[in-house]
């Protein structure tokens, strides 16, 4: 009876203390927002886990590159039959092309973004991805404060807008992807120059979409229209003119007479690898800087 009672008392204490600690951390963090007392802990954890994630990524990258090529191939195969010919070509390409060459092409695409816009970019790789169980679409990239990256900078890749920097450690940074359910981006339609807000639907895979609501209730977006970033004051968190996606479907809601549109992002958020953090705004761009949007 003695050891048994000891055991259950021990267990009960551990359970009560653990639950209290967890709930206290949660309460402090939820109530404190960005000045929460948990923030230093988080920053400390980023300094510890950042280098480990970088090291682990360097070790497993050769393996995961091969795996991701395989996954890509599988997904392509499951696409509709009309794409079968294209698939075969791509599969052949994937099989013959070396990973290094793909990397080089990615760098070229990224350099193209820089050349075209005059943005200063810090290149980085995605080294860790938040799981779907976490319900947040965030990734860790391999550039931090030591490389000039800070919070609220725009992150792009060769295809367009990726997201914005949430927080940084010395050698890594956490990026909130544009498709995250908490992400709001000011956007501009290329055809009509209308302004609107893009919200993520929280999905990372092929069904990752943004919802566009225009500021002008009478404006109607056209299907296929391209949306670029509106640009925030000082280029933070979003610089102006980065392509975000194209309008896929326009929905008119009869109830509140507003028009919303589903936007397919240009960037494949589930296969992110090389990205660039915009550390310097456009220097040689003609015209006044855009400003005013979040």
């Amino acid at each position, binding site marked *: 009876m003695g050891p048994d009672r000891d*055991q259950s008392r021990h267990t009960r204490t551990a359970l009560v203390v653990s639950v209290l600690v967890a709930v206290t951390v949660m309460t402090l963090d939820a109530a404190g927002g960005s000045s929460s007392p948990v923030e230093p802990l988080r920053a400390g954890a980023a300094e510890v*886990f950042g280098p480990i*994630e970088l090291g682990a990524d360097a070790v497993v990258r050769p393996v995961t590159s091969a795996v991701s090529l395989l996954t890509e191939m599988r997904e392509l195969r499951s696409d509709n039959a009309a794409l079968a010919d294209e698939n075969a070509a791509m599969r052949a390409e994937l099989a013959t092309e070396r990973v290094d060459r793909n990397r080089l092409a990615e760098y070229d695409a990224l350099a193209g973004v820089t050349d075209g816009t005059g943005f200063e970019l810090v290149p980085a790789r995605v080294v860790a991805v938040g799981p779907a169980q976490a319900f947040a679409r965030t990734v860790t990239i391999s550039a931090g404060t030591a490389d000039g990256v800070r919070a609220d900078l725009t992150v792009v890749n060769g295809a367009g807008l990726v997201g914005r920097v949430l927080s940084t450690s010395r050698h890594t940074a956490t990026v909130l992807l544009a498709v995250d359910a908490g992400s709001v981006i000011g956007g501009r339609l290329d055809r009509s120059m209308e302004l609107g807000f893009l919200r993520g639907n929280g999905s990372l895979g092929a069904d990752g979409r943004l919802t566009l609501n225009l500021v002008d209730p009478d404006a109607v977006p056209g299907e296929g229209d391209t949306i670029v970033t509106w640009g925030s004051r000082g280029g933070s968190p979003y610089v102006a003119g980065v392509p975000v996606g194209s309008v896929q479907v326009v929905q008119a809601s009869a109830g509140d007479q507003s028009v919303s549109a589903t936007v397919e992002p240009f960037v494949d958020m589930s296969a992110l690898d090389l990205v660039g953090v915009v550390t310097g705004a456009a220097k040689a761009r003609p015209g006044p800087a855009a400003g005013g949007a979040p």
Partner: protein
Amino acid sequence: MRVLRPFVTAVLVLLTVTLQVGLFARLSIAGVVPDLALLLVVAAAIVRGPAYGTVLGLVAGLAVDLAPPADGVAGRWALGLALAGWLAGQARSDAKQSAFATLITVAVASLVATSVYALTGLVLAEPGVSVAEALEVLPVALLYDVAITPLVVPLAMLIMRTLDPTPVRW
């Protein structure tokens, strides 16, 4: 070996949390990755009892909550994994005897941990958390955790036993 125990356990926690967001993020099924930290906590609870499982769950959960790219309110995985560790500890006499009972223990622990994380997210009105989304993610997470259990849990149990060979009386 007892002296080494906290260090080895800390390394195991760092390793599982890193693998979860690194290597396994690339082997995800619909974005869902196996909860390696949970498997570690379950293995520890089966070997060393519910009290140890609960505390390790709290620590490992905090690591998952805080390690980048985690965002949002911290303490949610800590609560989920602590409860999972406690539950697995309660079931340890069965789980020690049959592999099937171990799988059931992992399934229940996974369900509890992921549900607690999702529910606290709903209560705190975290962006992206919805009942529909949670119902989509829960079964995938459960099946993935159970599927990878034979690869992870026996190894983790072996390490835990080697670290402290004295039989735990309670």
